[in-house]
């Protein structure tokens, strides 16, 4: 895999003529996790979807550039809150979906390796309905990794999980996505505090860069500095929403 690029998103968006967000600049540092934290409706998903070149209800004026000047949209892998697993396909078929949709033959050794890494080897031939929420989200993570893209866009992928499964998934994702340029959209200050190499709080007024804890991500759930950061982030969110 080539070195992950830096991505710079700069611009503004309107919906039906009304401002969704004023001009702002968001940089995703190469090979690092950038957490975009904010309340619902501020436009976090819109930014992520613009980077992925997906439909949004907004009109965007601005630029989305990669440091290596190559196009961005065909180098992203996308993971959303819903796992988007095809119910009629097996775990293995879901993980290899990308290759099948491009008319390519999936690499079986890569599949086997990923199944091991997300601890689903025994479930490869099962249908998604037979799995728990956490297992399903691990399949979605494996599918994202199978794509072998340099830029990973995560739109609240863990927010539907219970607290302990969510913490497990955060650890697993941090481990498996090491070296990628990651944008994690979240409304959860604890998640941002655990995972971010950079944390940007988004509000109707724009972006505010926040200090991150000194421990390396993923940080322990009971790390004191991480908990303090979490508190500071929540406070900032509450101040900015008024």
């Amino acid at each position: 895999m080539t070195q992950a690029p830096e991505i710079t998103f700069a611009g503004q968006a309107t919906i039906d003529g009304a401002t969704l967000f004023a001009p702002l600049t968001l940089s995703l540092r190469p090979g690092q996790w950038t957490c975009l934290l904010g309340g619902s409706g501020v436009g976090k998903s819109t930014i992520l979807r613009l980077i992925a070149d997906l439909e949004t209800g907004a009109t965007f004026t601005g630029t989305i550039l990669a440091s290596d000047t190559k196009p961005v949209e065909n180098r992203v892998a996308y993971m959303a809150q819903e796992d988007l697993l095809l119910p009629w396909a097996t775990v293995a078929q879901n993980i290899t979906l990308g290759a099948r949709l491009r008319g390519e033959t999936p690499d079986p050794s890569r599949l086997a390796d990923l199944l091991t890494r997300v601890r689903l080897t025994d479930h490869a031939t099962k249908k998604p309905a037979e799995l728990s929420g956490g297992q399903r989200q691990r399949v979605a993570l494996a599918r994202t990794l199978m794509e072998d893209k340099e830029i990973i866009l995560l739109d609240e992928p863990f927010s539907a999980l219970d607290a302990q499964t969510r913490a497990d998934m955060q650890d697993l994702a941090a481990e498996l996505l090491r070296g990628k340029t990651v944008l994690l959209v979240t409304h959860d200050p604890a998640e941002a505090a655990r995972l971010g190499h950079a944390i940007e709080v988004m509000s109707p007024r724009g972006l505010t860069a926040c200090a991150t804890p000194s421990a390396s991500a993923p940080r322990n759930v009971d790390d004191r500095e991480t908990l303090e950061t979490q508190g500071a982030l929540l406070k900032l969110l509450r101040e900015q929403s008024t």
Partner: protein
Amino acid sequence: MTRYLPALIATVFAVTVWQAIVSITGLPKFILPGPALVAETWWTNRAVIAEHTFITFIEVMIGLVLGALLGAITAIQLATSRLARMLVQPMLVFTQALPVFALAPILTLWLGYGLWSKVAMAVLIIYFPVTSSFFDGLMRTPPGYLDLAKTMQATPRAVLWQIRIPAALPSLASGLRLAAVYAPIGAVIGEWVGASKGLGYLMLLANGRAKTDLMFAAMLTLGVLSILLHWAVRTATVRLEESHSGRSRAQ
């Protein structure tokens, strides 16, 4: 067994009411024959009834298969081509405004008195429900799947075959269940307009000769045939949906 108990009770109830009406009103048997007489007629004429039932059954089955195929192909064409939608959709609406019955004499004129005019009627009557329910399903693919496919640089063809069609199969299944109800109606209308075989023909013939008991026997046989057909299609499509979603339906 308890699954069939309500149906059994309903049947006994209907037969009782029927017999009661016959006994109370004292209607002559060429107006309203009683259940016992109809059963007896059915038994003495069983060979004739079986022969005509077989013909109607064949018409319905061929009609179902052809109608489902044509409907499915049309739905896919409509879902994948804006041009097809522009050209064909108004025509579909027009053909729906036209009672299919009105076409029966023309079909008999074009296709003759044999099997094919009845098959054509069955096809015509089921074509629209199959097409429209499958088409709706194809146009209502969950948007998240399409987003995912786009970030994967999927080809439109692969999206159609691996996402849109599988996701629309439950809609196709509900169209097929409707088709199973409509197809016998189409075949019988075809037989009424002009035929020398089939349950519809037998009903007309019996009616014309004031053999009302035979007409009832033929009509009830048609009812049973329709119910069995609907049940078979239902069972098959539910199985399909279960294996499709990897989930078994709660009973």
